[in-house]
């Protein structure tokens, strides 16, 4: 993951933090294209349960992933206060449905601690480490495992 992480010249990382079901998560800002308010999505047939549907981003059709469902935290009941983080990894662009975006932070890579064992297994699979900030725990998401690479469009 760190290879694709945006590193500033001083070796610092900029991250976007957000909350899902009250828990703090973060991803590298380099992957974030933009952040949008929630709009109803179009249901996709035969989709995995964590895919809420399709959204229109200025003419591009994107699938929206319910991160809460993906991380095993239960289905989100989206309301207009929810936001969609548009994320690009490789050639694909997807939207992540989250409750709220909290902050943009600058962290030193060595601040990242390994994931403690207490986390639920499904959540842990998608986390590459945690940052402690202001007594809050930010779980750094591993985008590659959330959006498995090399699977190609089927």
């Amino acid at each position, binding site marked *: 993951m760190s290879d694709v992480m945006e590193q500033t010249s001083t070796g610092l990382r900029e991250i976007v933090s957000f909350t899902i079901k009250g828990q703090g998560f973060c991803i590298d800002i380099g992957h974030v294209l933009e952040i949008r308010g929630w709009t109803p999505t179009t249901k996709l047939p035969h989709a995995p349960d964590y895919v809420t549907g*399709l959204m229109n981003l200025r003419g591009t059709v994107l699938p929206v992933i319910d991160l809460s469902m993906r991380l095993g935290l239960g289905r989100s009941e989206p309301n207009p206060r929810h936001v969609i983080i548009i994320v690009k990894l490789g050639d694909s662009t997807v939207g992540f449905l989250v409750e709220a975006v909290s902050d943009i932070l600058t962290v030193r890579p060595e601040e990242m601690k390994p994931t403690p064992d207490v986390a639920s297994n499904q959540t842990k699979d998608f986390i590459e480490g945690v940052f402690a900030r202001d007594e809050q725990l930010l779980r750094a998401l591993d985008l590659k495992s959330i959006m498995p690479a090399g*699977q190609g469009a089927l």
Partner: protein
Amino acid sequence: MTDLRTAFFEECEELLETLSDGLASLEEGADDSETVNSIFRAVHSIKGSAGAFHLNALAEFSHIFENVLDLLREGKLSADEDLMPLLYAAGDHLSYLVEAANGGVEVEPDRAAALVADLRRTANVEGSATEEEDPDTSAEDVAAIGAFQPINLDLGLPDLGSIDTGEAPAPTGPPRYTIRFAPKDELFETGHDPVLIFRALRALGPVEATADLTEVPAFSEIEWDRPYISWTLTLQTEAGRDGIEGVFDFVSDLCDLEIVPDLPPSTAQAAEPPAGGGETPDEDGPGNVDTGDAGTAAAAPTTAAAAPSAPSAAKPAAKKPEGKAARDTIRVELERVDRLVNIVGELVISEAMLRQAMSDSAMSAHGPAANAMGQLRQLSGELQESVMAIRAQPVRGLFQRMSRIVREVTRETGKNARIVTEGEATEVDKTVIERLVDPLTHMIRNAIDHGLEKPEQREAAGKKALGTVTLSAAHRSGRVIIELRDDGAGINRPKVRELAISKGLIAAGDDLSDAEIDNLLFAPGFSTSEKVSNLSGRGVGMDVVRSEIQALGGRVSIASEWGKGTVFSISLPLTLAVLEGMIVEVAGEKIVVPTTTLRETVRASEAAMHCLGDSERVLSMRDGLVPIVDLGESLGFRGRVSDFSDQSLLLIETDTGQRTALAVDRVYDQREVVIKGLEQNYRQVPGIAAATILGDGRIALIADTDQFTSTGPGTAAASVSASGDIFDDFSDFGV
């Protein structure tokens, strides 16, 4: 340089197309000089540029080919039945060489040995006549030549022997020409380089160059951008005057050029030894005056004696690059066009959103805003059409490529076949054409390899030994229909059935209609060939062909009559970008059903429906029963509705005549929608062809109606209903 190379290969593609066109009209009997000239020019241009790019194999072969064409042009050969196959073979080989050069592939050296020999022989039978250039001699130039202070130039042409010019050292070598070449300022201003021209000349035959430095002023007076140096070149070539002029085609206005044929080789031979001896190319760098080279100075007057001075000097200047001006086109990168197409797509969507917003806000339908809106709508529609037209291309190139495949396959299989093409001018989206190459190639190989019988079998069946494969294209109701017809044996249905049973594709007791048996050919893992030939039995079956065509939004169907032949029809959308669809609603979601397969819309309450078994229902139509498929259920949006009476039924009919009634909750209107692929950011979804954006900005899915109608084994319909668990695994989620 890379850009130039790219441009060269693009140009080659066009030239090969011209060549192919010309050959076809020649065969049809259009033996006029314009046709022959266009062929000649095409080959000639390829040769000229190939030389400039050091594509020796290509330059060399086009040269040999050109010789034959030259004779044809002069009427010394005629395009009869003996010559045409040779010309075709040469054209095919030329295409092969261009492709090889483009792909950086090593050319198989023996691939065309026989062909080259044939061409050489053909050229030589009549060839002697071409060498008779003007015997008209004049010695006026002797003095001018004598005034030269020739020097040797190292053109970086180390190995002249590598260019095969036939029997170069033999006494009957190709004729010699003396070329005087004096660049003007503009030549350098426009980026031309004499060295490249000299290299191109070298591709025609052994060349010797001497520079005339008499015009070069004292060093302090030299203006850096003035051409002070002119050259005298002697070239031994079979290319003829036209061949040489061709090299100078692009600079003919930018220089003073004089091409003078020398005395016939036998005479000139006497003058050669001293010249050859004194001019080892590695002697000195450019600019060094070689005073010791009296040999050339002595030889020059002799050779120049053949110069018909005045007329020949005037001629090159008057000669314009032919065949170029006629093409009133520009080359645009596809990427730019695609960007334009995308933007126009967005514009159309925004326009629709604006229109919807206006009607939602209850604005007057006749006010000035509405009028302007109407105008905008019309303009954006026209804009969209025009942009789509940019991407459209005639299928001619594709068909020509297929003609080549036919010739290749007939050679390999020993079957006699000819190809007839119809509707080459039909225009289709460029991407569609490109992506049709592979499936069509495969189908044509199949048609000849499996479809056509051996000549003796054909004769026994009372048919002509020469089989015919017909490839046709036509526009039909908003789609392009490409048909591949052969007059072969047709599908051996009992055998197909037997094979399908042995491969477990169908059960022994299954009762299949003829059409269903024919469609088994498309089933994965099916191959009718008893022995695997290296042509079609590559493990790539017709199922791959079908999926490739489906990926283009197309359909392929098959019809066959035993003993008479088989017809494959490919039905394709005109463009990949827009589609005419009926907007319907299912379980609260809007779905677009393409109108291409839509035959009729029926209100379920007024239709005659019957139950079949537990919950299957059929619709009773005038001419039979049609199964009803609940769209909402088969897309997994909801369970089956028990009562269809509130629903509408869309009667769908595929190209193969299979019918299905799709039950939907509500039918809205019919409109044109912009197709947005799902594969880029997601993946293909069973039952869904693509997505689109509606006027309110929401996304609607476009149903792939074929998947709800096909009933054959292993088809998409099966996977639509059997889905569910296989997609739950997140690794399926293609990103």
